[in-house]
């Protein structure tokens, strides 16, 4: 198992490195200007480019960038966004907001999704099943920000239960609407997968055998059905988690949440292209994604001994 984890870890680090390199090049090719000023002279802009090292060969720039991250723990400073302020002093609050709201959405989405999926599978082709399918279709089709707008309209405008905009002094209350709207997609996805997997597993021979041996109810569901059905669900859950943690671009914008999704939008579609913010956020996103995938691989091993065995042989 340790070898298996080590191997996955090595691959993960290599992946992040390659992503960083590609991102680094792509950001510099993007149209737009890190100093989108109409009031700076050509000399002023040249001085700024020099200060940021933008005129060095791209390889030198990349090495300096990596060095800066590992030696100084710094992602650099903002240029078009929060000019002159070190990125590491802006990021923590944004990450914290996105993670907390995303975390709520994941937890809520997973629990509700699992319950719906299980109920649907146990009531195959009955009302509950149809109900869950309808919810799934709605949840997958309608973007989260549309839910957000409706929730805001009904629960913050028509009846004022929740704040109209995100208010960090009332975090819990403010987080409910965005968390619910964000969780709908995962509720739908998880419910659908859980149902389908469970239905498949329930039809399999070993479940039939277990039932024949007199096993039924909760022990059968948790020990035999759910454990096998969970493997594919873990696969879908992983990217969902990253998506939710890294913030929802539009939902954050609508509800005025100071999160990393909004930060990303501001860095790209603001007055200019802020190279350092786009890169830093891109690296964080890919690192998170890779980390979650790593965890998924390990969890696979735990859930399904066959994967561990294959890894050992490989």
């Amino acid at each position, binding site marked *: 198992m340790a070898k298996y984890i080590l191997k996955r870890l090595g691959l993960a680090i290599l992946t992040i490195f390659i992503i960083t390199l590609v991102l680094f090049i792509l950001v510099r090719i993007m*149209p*737009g*200007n890190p100093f*989108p*000023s*109409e*009031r*700076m002279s*050509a000399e*002023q802009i040249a001085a700024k480019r020099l200060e940021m090292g933008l005129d060095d060969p791209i390889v030198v720039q990349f090495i300096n960038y990596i060095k800066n991250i590992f030696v100084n723990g710094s992602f650099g*400073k903002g240029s*078009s966004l*929060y*000019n*002159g*302020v*070190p990125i590491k*002093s*802006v990021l923590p*609050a944004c990450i914290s907001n996105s993670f*907390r*709201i995303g*975390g*709520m959405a994941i*937890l*809520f989405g997973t*629990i*509700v999704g699992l*319950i*719906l999926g299980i109920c649907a599978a146990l009531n195959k082709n*009955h009302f509950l099943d149809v109900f869950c399918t309808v919810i799934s279709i709605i949840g997958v089709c309608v973007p989260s920000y549309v839910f957000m*707008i409706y929730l*805001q*309209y009904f629960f*913050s*405008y028509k009846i004022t239960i929740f*704040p*109209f*905009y*995100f*208010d*960090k*002094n*009332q*975090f*819990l209350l403010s*987080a*409910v609407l965005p*968390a619910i709207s964000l969780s709908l997609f995962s509720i739908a996805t998880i419910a659908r997968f859980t149902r389908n997997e469970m239905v498949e597993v329930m039809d399999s021979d070993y479940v039939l055998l277990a039932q024949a041996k007199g096993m039924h109810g909760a022990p059968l569901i948790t020990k035999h059905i759910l454990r096998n059905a969970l493997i594919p669900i873990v696969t879908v859950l992983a990217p969902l988690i990253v998506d939710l943690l890294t913030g929802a671009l539009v939902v954050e*914008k*609508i509800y*005025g*949440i*100071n999160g990393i999704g*909004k930060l990303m939008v501001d860095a790209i*579609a*603001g*007055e*200019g*292209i802020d190279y350092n913010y786009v890169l830093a956020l891109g690296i964080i996103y890919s690192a998170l994604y890779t980390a979650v995938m790593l965890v998924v691989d390990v969890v696979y091993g735990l859930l399904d001994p066959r994967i561990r065995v294959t890894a050992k042989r490989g």
Partner: protein
Amino acid sequence: MKTLKKLLGVALAAAMVMALAACGGGGNSTPSGSGNSGGASGKPVKAMLYTNVMSLDTNLATDGDSFEVIADCIDGLTQMDADGAAVPAIAESWDIENDGTLYTFHLRDDANWSNGTPVTANDFVFAWQRGVLGNEEYGYMFSDIGQIKNAQAIMDGTADVTTLGVTAKDDKTLVVELEVPVSYFESLMYFPTFYPINQEFYEGLEEGTYGTSPDTYLSNGAFVLTDYLPGTASLSLKKNDGYYDAAKVSLSGIEYQVVGSSDNALSAFKNGSLDIVMVNGDQVSAAETDAATKDNIKVTGAGYMWYLSFSQTANNANGYLANANLRLAITNALDREALVDNYVKDGSLATYTCVPPQFAASSTTGEDFSADQTRFADVCSFDAAKAQDYLKKAQEELGVNDFKFTIIYGNNEGDEVAKVAQAIQQQIQDTLPGVTIELSNMTKAERLDKMQNDNYEIALTRWGPDYADPMTYLGMWITNNANNYGFWSNAEYDQLIADCTTGAYVTDYDARWNAMYDAETLVMNEAVIAPLYTKANANIIASNVTGVEFHPVALNRVYKNCIVQ
């Protein structure tokens, strides 16, 4: 089945509670707006901001929303009165000598920073030297605009920063030397770039952290920061009880909320979440018919002017747009009234001058420089026949019958911009047979990038005034100016502008004023640009909020005299 449903309901509720409980740590449940200062009796005002506050550092800030919040917290030597005139603030009086090149400001004794230390002349010297050394986007306020002695030389690296024409004669006397007289110098002093910074406090902070939180920012003005982080979508200020003019401040604070689109700003206003919101043209029409808002609409000048810029170099469109008759044909084909009435719809003004109205008034007559919008009507107002005549001349001169141009515009510069671009396309093509217009939209950053690299044909662009003088526009069209995006060049024009800024007219106010009209005539007669409209902001303000001062230049909104009943 029934029990199952019940169970499901209970499970859902439980899941939600668990999810909330597990992740909700860290926040406290103080309701917003409770941060009133003890001494203030009034209520806070809840105002919408259109963009994030990018910087509270006076030398780094570049956008109107940032300037507004900075000015809430910090007073300069002067401040704006309701009409935009400069009135004493930190400086209680000043002497002007040497034909207007030597200012001696006498600072008030009771002005203190929010950490209790007095505001001194050195705070200005430090801030201005830092501004000149940093040479950031608004660095040119010290050199080209403010004409502070040696500012340009220091920026060019040919003089030491200690030679900058600003000195502290003593703690309460600031002496400023200028290269040439600047008629609008007093009104420059309320622009945030010229605000003071407490040197000792600044130097005690970690690099790059000044103005990034309430702990790293000092006020000497009406309000102090209580809640702010870069990137935050909401920030709050409370009344500064130590402010020298605190007795006149009735607000207990300001709660700002960044609202990215005006789409739900109106709902936020209607349910009381915001007291002041800005809405777009379509919403103005809706608000006018809604009993809840129709009496609350207030249109204020936003200052900036939208115009068409034509690239006149051979790099683009075969250099055809260097032909003045072709440009005149286009500008005469534009129905500006139709643009503002049918597409912008927020009270913006159709504009027929290259210096927009509403922001620069003569200090001798008090008359708005561009009050007379008919002055150049014969060269740019909508006249299909005249436009076609100009086109015919251009076709003969260039030996070309059909023209095709692309207009670039930003897709993140306001809800109405795309509609305006389409309308312009339609108007030109309808009026000028043989001219085809294509549209290309991009981010504002990309648009600027193309214009700065002379890689465009026609651009729908805008410019906002930095100070209350026509030169903030006229200065753009001198040869080789970075904002002369058309690359137009005219020796007579360059001479006129030089005379107005550093030459013959700097000591003769009225002669300078008239010379600026002469300069404007040159721009308009050749249609160097095609002015379109002067943008207005349609605000909706709660009935119980009075006294907010709106300005088209420097500080968009001033809250010092605002009252919430």
